[in-house]
């Protein structure tokens, strides 16, 4: 037993986990400071009350979207072969949502009242809708992950009865897939609508924001699932990863990026030609102001165009490094989109002066404590995924029957559903 534990020390995984634990510890210290001293230790102000944590929160929910998409693909569209990929996505999704909840808990002024969101209802608020859907969907994800935990070795070894009962929840998978699909479509777009319904903020006030949040979550969420699977396959020889399965998803991401780019284009044109006080200023901030590098570089060129080309070309996609780079770019493009959107609406401050509504500018840079808390939450997510891969085998494509030997003409092999 001891020797088994010791063999772990000194390996790359040991240093990786140690690094994550250090970051988590720093995050815990910073988080305690926030809880004791309140939000005055952040750089948030009454002009910019939503900052780094909201961006992490929005990004982690969006990047968890792989879970509902793959569940829907497997159990509703019947693409059974993607089941092992769905397993990864569901686990990553659960961790992502727990990250978002942690972030929100730090961000609200009264974390002791977090339960008010479920008890006191204002059905007119997009945030009420988000609270409800996230709460319910978190339950769905927990149920979807239950069988994975139930069939894990430690569970089977110690409490096989309970483990088997947890495994049996898998029978509910189709129901959970439908619930997950509905709840996710609702709250992923409601997060965009949270901004989109605010008439006080002309740059946000548009219906497209809800749709764009949804579309970007689709590309980002799937990219994270595929990326984590690929990384797991590369770092451990014990983990079997079927590149043909992941390739199916990546190709879909490529096409989804085309659709997403199309939406972004018309959203861009809409902002360009409205000449509304506040909207024009915010738009200029994005396209040629302080956020322009983030916008053109992070969101559009590196976030959509480059990965779109890589993922749509089967030749470029075969290059493992390029393929993974493309996925990283899609993910960082999504984060840049969330950050820019949240910031640009607050950086332009509208005031009423004698000559009418006038725009002025403000800015925000997160404080060290905000950064440490954010890093701690991200490190927690990375640790949970690492442990999940190592002990729960959430990335494991070995159970799938081998494909017909490298014949590209037969990718749409209809699987039999009779057995399940």
């Amino acid at each position, binding site marked *: 037993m001891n020797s088994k534990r010791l063999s772990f020390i000194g390996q790359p995984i040991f240093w990786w986990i140690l690094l994550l634990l250090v970051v988590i510890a720093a995050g815990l210290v910073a988080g305690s400071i926030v809880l004791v001293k*309140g939000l005055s230790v952040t750089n948030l102000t009454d002009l910019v009350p939503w900052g780094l944590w909201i961006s992490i929160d929005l990004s982690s929910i969006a990047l968890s979207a792989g879970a509902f998409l793959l569940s829907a693909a497997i*159990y509703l569209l019947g693409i059974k072969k993607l089941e092992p990929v769905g397993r990864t996505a569901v686990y990553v999704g659960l961790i992502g949502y727990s990250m978002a909840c942690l972030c929100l808990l730090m961000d609200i002024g*009264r974390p002791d009242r977090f339960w008010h969101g479920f008890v*006191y209802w204002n059905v007119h608020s997009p945030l009420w809708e988000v609270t409800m859907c996230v709460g*319910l969907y978190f339950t769905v994800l927990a149920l979807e992950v239950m069988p994975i935990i139930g069939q894990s070795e430690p569970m089977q070894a110690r409490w096989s009865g309970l483990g088997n009962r947890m495994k049996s929840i898998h029978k509910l998978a189709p129901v959970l897939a439908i619930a997950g699909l509905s709840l996710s479509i609702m709250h992923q777009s409601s997060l965009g609508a949270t901004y989109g319904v605010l008439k006080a903020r002309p740059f946000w006030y548009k219906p497209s924001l809800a749709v764009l949040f949804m579309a970007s979550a689709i590309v980002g969420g799937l990219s994270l699932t595929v990326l984590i699977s690929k990384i797991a396959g590369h770092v451990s020889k014990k983990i079997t990863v079927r590149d043909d399965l992941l390739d199916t998803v990546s190709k879909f991401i490529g096409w989804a990026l085309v659709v997403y780019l199309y939406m972004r284009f018309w959203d861009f044109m809409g902002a360009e030609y409205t000449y509304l006080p506040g909207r024009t200023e915010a738009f200029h901030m994005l396209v040629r102001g302080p956020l322009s590098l983030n916008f053109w570089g992070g969101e559009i060129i590196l976030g959509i165009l480059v990965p779109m080309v890589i993922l749509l070309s089967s030749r470029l996609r075969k290059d493992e490094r390029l393929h993974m780079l493309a996925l990283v770019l899609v993910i960082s493009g999504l984060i840049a989109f969330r950050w820019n959107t949240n910031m640009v609406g607050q950086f332009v401050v509208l005031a009423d002066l004698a000559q009418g509504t006038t725009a002025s500018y403000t800015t925000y840079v997160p404080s060290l404590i905000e950064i440490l808390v954010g890093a701690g939450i991200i490190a927690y997510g990375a640790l949970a995924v690492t442990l999940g891969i190592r002990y729960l085998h959430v990335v494991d494509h070995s159970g799938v029957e081998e494909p017909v030997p490298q014949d590209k003409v037969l990718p749409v092999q209809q699987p039999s559903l009779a057995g399940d």
Partner: protein
Amino acid sequence: MEENKIDRRSFIKLGTIGLAATTVGVAWTSGQSDKQNELNARSEPEAESPHRWAMVIDQAKCVGCEQCVLACKAQNDIAPDMAWSKVTLVEPVGQQEVYLPVQCMHCEDAPCVDICPVGASYYRPDGIVMMDYDRCIGCRYCEIACPYGARSFNWQKFEGENPVVPAWGQPEVPRRPRGVVEKCTFCAQRIDRGLEFGLIPGVDQAATPACVVACPQKARTFGDLNDPNSSVSKLLANHASYQLREDLGTGPRIYYLPAVSPHHIEEDQA
């Protein structure tokens, strides 16, 4: 193929049942609480009140002395780094420096009430937009949504003495805890207490918002829009007025008489 079809159909059937069950379950567990009924009653604007309070601010009279701000800070016990009522200098119009006092507009259709996820911002029956400090979770969505920048968040606990007390008045309401959003209440405590004693808000000083009472220029007028004889009703009937961001459709209950308007020119000539 046949099997496949049946399978999928039963999946969808199961799923629909599951979803319906979830919805019913959630509605059942939280729908019928007393608090919920209370919230529903609150959300009805002007449910039952004979009054509709409003304020008129005459920009021609305002000299930017900020005595209203100080009185507000004292009587509502507001931290030095926060303010419910602010006075900003706008561009000079002609010879005169023009000021714009801004605070919560007590909108008829308030974005903050619409979007508060827990219903902590609500309409009183008399139209005043109030905050429930015990319910607020401090998400600051209302700060983001308010077109008038009228809301402040308690980033830290207000401890120690209030520097403007007692010079500018005595606190009439408890301090708000750290972590909630606060804003102008039209001094609802003064209105309510005044009405109990048979006073008329806007006429009797003890029943009138502190900022109105404090103004040495008499630039602020408060009263009941439902009463055609109230001074606000008369002012609005006889003078050109405007509201901030009328284009948004929020229906603010603070009206401004512009600094340069025909009635002032007439008065000057007379």
